[in-house]
């Protein structure tokens, strides 16, 4: 991997210059360290994740540190956002017993959303969640939460029953269904939770890169400029589409977390 590939793409490559289209690939997601703190090398995704944490904590701290009965503008916005997750996700999925888990869901939703939204913010322009380690860590938190809740609610035997024996089916089916349910609940759920978020952001970033590199690559000749303009319009349209996908993925991540928690809270029959 050469140095200019680290800079997203080869910048002096244009149409009819005897160099192929520098298609984006895995190397678009590898970054040189920006700076080092001690022995830690901090690169762009890490810095973005740190920044997201600061933004989320700062925003909610500023809004709710000194709450008033009649909310100010800032607190009002934060309350609307909080209430969206509380009503739209927790109430819909878990009902009244979901109330203690609202803070977790709110944090997850806004953290994931901010990490996704970096993809279209100028100068950041990289979704931190398209590095698989970040969604994996979030999925691990979710996994630990619902595993702990399963065994706390049902005890050891009941917990295992809750995880792998769905009730109310003919006896013969359990022979096949129990292993499937076990693998699904313990391994597949956190895996899909990780891969869904990661792959969506990965694919979205690649899509934007293809068109923005295409814009630059075809620029220069008279014919190329038409292609370039089309590609630019496509980039803008896809940016809007990505905004929608980012919010949707954050929502889906939160809804799935809520539904796993609500399954964990179900009493054994």
């Amino acid at each position: 991997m050469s140095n200019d590939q680290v800079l997203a793409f080869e910048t002096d490559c244009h149409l009819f210059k005897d160099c192929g289209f520098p298609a984006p690939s895995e190397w678009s997601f590898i970054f040189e360290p920006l700076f080092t703190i001690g022995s830690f090398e901090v690169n762009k995704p890490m810095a973005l994740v740190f920044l997201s944490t600061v933004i989320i904590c700062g925003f909610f701290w500023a809004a709710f540190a000194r709450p008033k009965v009649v909310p100010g503008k800032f607190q009002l916005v934060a309350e609307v956002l909080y209430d969206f997750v509380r009503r739209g996700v927790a109430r819909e999925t878990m009902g009244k017993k979901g109330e203690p888990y609202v803070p977790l869901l709110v944090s997850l939703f806004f953290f994931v959303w901010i990490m996704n939204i970096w993809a279209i913010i100028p100068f950041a322009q990289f979704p931190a969640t398209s590095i698989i380690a970040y969604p994996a860590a979030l999925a691990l938190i979710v996994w630990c939460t619902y595993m702990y809740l399963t065994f706390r609610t049902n005890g050891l035997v009941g917990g295992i029953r809750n995880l792998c024996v769905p009730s109310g089916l003919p006896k013969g089916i359990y022979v096949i269904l129990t292993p499937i349910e076990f693998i699904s609940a313990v391994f597949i759920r956190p895996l899909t939770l990780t891969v869904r978020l990661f792959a969506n952001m990965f694919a979205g970033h690649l899509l934007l890169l293809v068109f923005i590199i295409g814009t630059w690559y075809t620029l220069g000749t008279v014919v190329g400029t038409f292609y370039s303009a089309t590609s630019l319009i496509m980039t803008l349209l896809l940016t809007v589409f990505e905004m929608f996908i980012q919010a949707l993925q954050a929502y889906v991540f939160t809804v799935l977390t809520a539904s796993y928690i609500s399954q964990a809270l179900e009493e054994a029959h």
Partner: protein
Amino acid sequence: MSAALAAVEGSVNTIGFGLAAIGPGVGIGIIFGNGVQAIARQPEATAVIRQNMLLGFAVVEALALMGFVLAFALGG
């Protein structure tokens, strides 16, 4: 005649992902089609239907995305 008449360069994974996307594509179509139909029949249940629709969409979409990730992960 041993010489190839036509040759395609590049990764076979791209074809594989194309094939892998068919199933989830059909699935997502069914989910949203039936979701819209359900909302049209019973508009007062929109909130619940939409949430379950998105949930089903996410679960089906995971299959397509796994194909996408494996296309990169397996190389070759």
